[in-house]
């Protein structure tokens, strides 16, 4: 059996020792406690006796060389007939074990003797690890601030939630979105524990989840408000805190502009037939309690065109494009407090009556503040209709995580020159499309708008 001879620690603070002289050569027999070498440290020069009897089988550290405390400097091969060995069975494994421990525990300081040096080493090593962190990814840049190419600093603010409020949210299954309906009584509108308690007492009575501003949009990931230079204020100027919903809209819009490569195309369509269809059938729908507006009329050809160009009904996630099976149409609805976008789910499954009903229901629910969380989720394509205000064209912002938004302008009677050079008065509309150039090229968008135009012009002609 081989027994390691280690550099002993000669003094609490001594970290290393120099071998002055070997008294034995490799192969020499060694008696227990016989001097085998001399060591010099910064505290003492001394002779080191052998821990066991045997033959010096290896010298690992030559004379004049300095090594750390705990380093194995030589090995003694104990002999089978060595009486000391049979007499002291406990000593051997221990000697071996201690050396083993020193080796194994290297990053960890070993108790007592070795600690001085081991500690020093550990510190320098851990320092090394930190600075050699190049192999590790650099610490993530906090999302709180990022610099725009234009040099505008965007601060992503988060409402502070105290630990106890967070805990209550967890216990009662309230997500940050739901939290938006709770008004905060703490400093700067912070929601306090007491606010939570008040809310929870009402919530249990009415478990239906109310709509919170942040779920106005599907992917409000991050809140982006433009951090502007201080603005000069004049005496009559009025300063008002943004409402939560206003903040959410702002954040969402900025987020979308930062996310998508917005691009617009404009076509013009002849909707004389469509308008005539509406005039003809309006009363019929009214009899069933449904007001036939132009919105559902636009939706029928729109969905047919989307079916032809599935990329219009897609989402981008990382480097993947998700093509949605269902067409869930988001309808931008203007309300006093701000924009809201309820969704007609699986709109492709509905006929005109169904669509008209759906539009009507959502619009009235929105106005009555009765939209549910579900009403606002899952849109795959958005239609915004500023035409009712007389808008002719627009460049709408895409509703993330969608890739396109369609915006018909006001339907106007215009004089058009027809193919046979005759003039005619027709119902005309400009069709605006914002699309995400990351996934939709101009040619595709153009082809889509062309198809949509054709469908709008033809879909209603048979009905006349």
């Amino acid at each position, binding site marked *: 059996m081989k027994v390691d001879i280690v550099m002993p620690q000669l*003094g609490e603070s*001594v970290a290393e020792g120099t071998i002055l002289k070997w008294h034995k050569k490799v192969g020499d027999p060694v008696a227990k406690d016989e001097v085998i070498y001399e060591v010099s440290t910064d505290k003492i020069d001394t002779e080191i006796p052998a821990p066991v009897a045997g033959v010096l089988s290896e010298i690992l550290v030559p004379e004049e060389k300095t090594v750390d405390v705990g380093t194995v400097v030589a090995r003694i091969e104990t002999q089978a007939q060595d009486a000391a060995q049979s007499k*002291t069975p406990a000593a051997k494994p221990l000697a071996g074990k201690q050396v083993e421990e020193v080796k194994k525990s290297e990053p960890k300081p070993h108790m*007592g003797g070795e600690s001085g040096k081991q500690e020093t080493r550990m510190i320098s090593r851990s320092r090394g690890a930190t600075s050699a962190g190049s192999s590790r990814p650099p610490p993530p840049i906090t999302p709180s601030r990022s610099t725009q190419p234009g040099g505008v600093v965007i601060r992503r603010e988060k409402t502070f939630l105290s630990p106890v409020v967070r805990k209550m949210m967890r216990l009662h299954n309230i997500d940050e979105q739901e939290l938006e309906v709770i008004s905060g009584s703490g400093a700067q509108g912070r929601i306090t524990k007491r606010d939570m308690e008040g809310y929870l007492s009402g919530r249990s009575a009415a478990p239906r989840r109310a709509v919170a501003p942040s779920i106005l949009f599907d992917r409000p990931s991050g809140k982006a408000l433009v951090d502007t230079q201080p603005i000069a204020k004049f005496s009559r100027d009025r300063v008002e805190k943004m409402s939560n919903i206003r903040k959410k809209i702002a954040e969402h819009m900025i987020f979308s502009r930062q996310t998508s490569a917005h691009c617009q195309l404009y076509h013009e369509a002849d909707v004389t037939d469509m308008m005539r269809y509406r005039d003809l059938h309006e009363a019929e729908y009214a009899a069933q309690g449904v007001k036939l507006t132009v919105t559902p009329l636009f939706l029928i050809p729109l969905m047919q065109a989307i079916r032809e160009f599935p990329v219009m009904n897609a989402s981008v996630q990382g480097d993947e494009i998700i093509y949605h099976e269902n067409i869930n149409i988001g309808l931008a609805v203007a309300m006093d407090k701000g924009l809201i976008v309820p969704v007609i789910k699986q709109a492709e499954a509905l006929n005109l009556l169904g669509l008209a009903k759906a539009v009507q229901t959502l619009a009235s629910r929105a106005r009555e503040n009765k939209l549910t969380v579900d009403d606002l989720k899952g849109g795959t394509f958005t239609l915004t209709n500023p035409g009712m205000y007389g808008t002719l064209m627009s460049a709408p912002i895409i509703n993330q995580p969608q890739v396109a938004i369609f915006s018909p302008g006001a339907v106007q009677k215009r004089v058009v020159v027809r193919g046979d050079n005759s003039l005619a008065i027709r119902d005309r509309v400009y069709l605006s499309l914002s699309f995400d150039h990351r996934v939709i090229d101009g040619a595709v968008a153009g082809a889509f708008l062309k198809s949509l135009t054709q469908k709008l012009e033809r879909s209603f002609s048979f009905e006349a």
Partner: protein
Amino acid sequence: MAKKTAAKSKSTAWSPKAEYLLTKEQAKEVYYYMRLNRSVEERAAALYRQGKIVGGCYSSTGNEAVSVATAYALEKRDFFVPLLRNFGGHLVRGQTPFHIFSQYLGRTTSPTRAKDCNVHLGNIKLKIPGIISHLSAYMPLACGIALACKKRGLDSVVINYIGNGGANVGEFHEALNLAGVWRLPFVLIIENNQYAYSTPNTAQYACQDLIDRAPGYGIEGAKIDGTDAFTVYGTTKWAIERARAGHGPYIIQTETMRMRGHAEHDGFEYVPKSMIEAWKKKDPLNKMVQTLKTEKIMTEKEIQATDQKIQDLIERDVEKALAAPLPDPEEVTQGVFADQTTENFFFN
């Protein structure tokens, strides 16, 4: 035997009933403990250099006569409040080489269950408080034990030790002042071994002898040769019995030489070679052997037999200690506070 200094005493003169001389059998025992003391320490130093003992390793070579003979002068009911170089006294009191090696090796079989290190062996049953590294700190404590003995009407005496270094700490003064004011059954041995770590006495204090301070506390004292076990025993026994009889504290300054470094890491090159050579001639163990032979107390053969017996005991205890268990890491948090039982007081 003892050269007494002129010391002012509040007590009346005290005459011992008898001269305190070691009998032949006692001399043999004192030799046994002196040899055991040195051999245990030599073995510890070897274990240290083999890397088995970690931390500090201390030797009392040159101090064996003081360490053993002072403790030998105590009765079982007396208290022993030692210094770091007092394994001799520990062994006399009943600690074993196994206790000492267990302590050095950090085994649970040590008197401190491996919580404290090397020479800090405490033992309630043997009436030994486990010292701390600030040696003078235990002087007031020793006085407190003496005070408790007095309050309980016990005739126990407390022997306490301080070195030529520790004697310069404030607690030395405060404790001796208390011992003097309260006339405590307290005997202080000042082990003057010429160096405090590397600093010689000339840089430690300006009085001629530390015992010169005794009158300032109203305490009597003596300065004696610390290499002669017979002298040490006689003087100490006298002082202890005097204190036991209610005549107050006493100070004995023993003159020795620390024949090794402060600890095993210290090569003590700062000591002049000639000084070491001179003191080598006064080695207390050699002196004892000479006396045993010339007084025909022990033959060379008997001495060798004793030495062999000691070697065997040490080897057996070293092996036992090496095989003893290391503490469980969880023990680290145990024992910070005492329970409310009445156990583990000196007076129980």
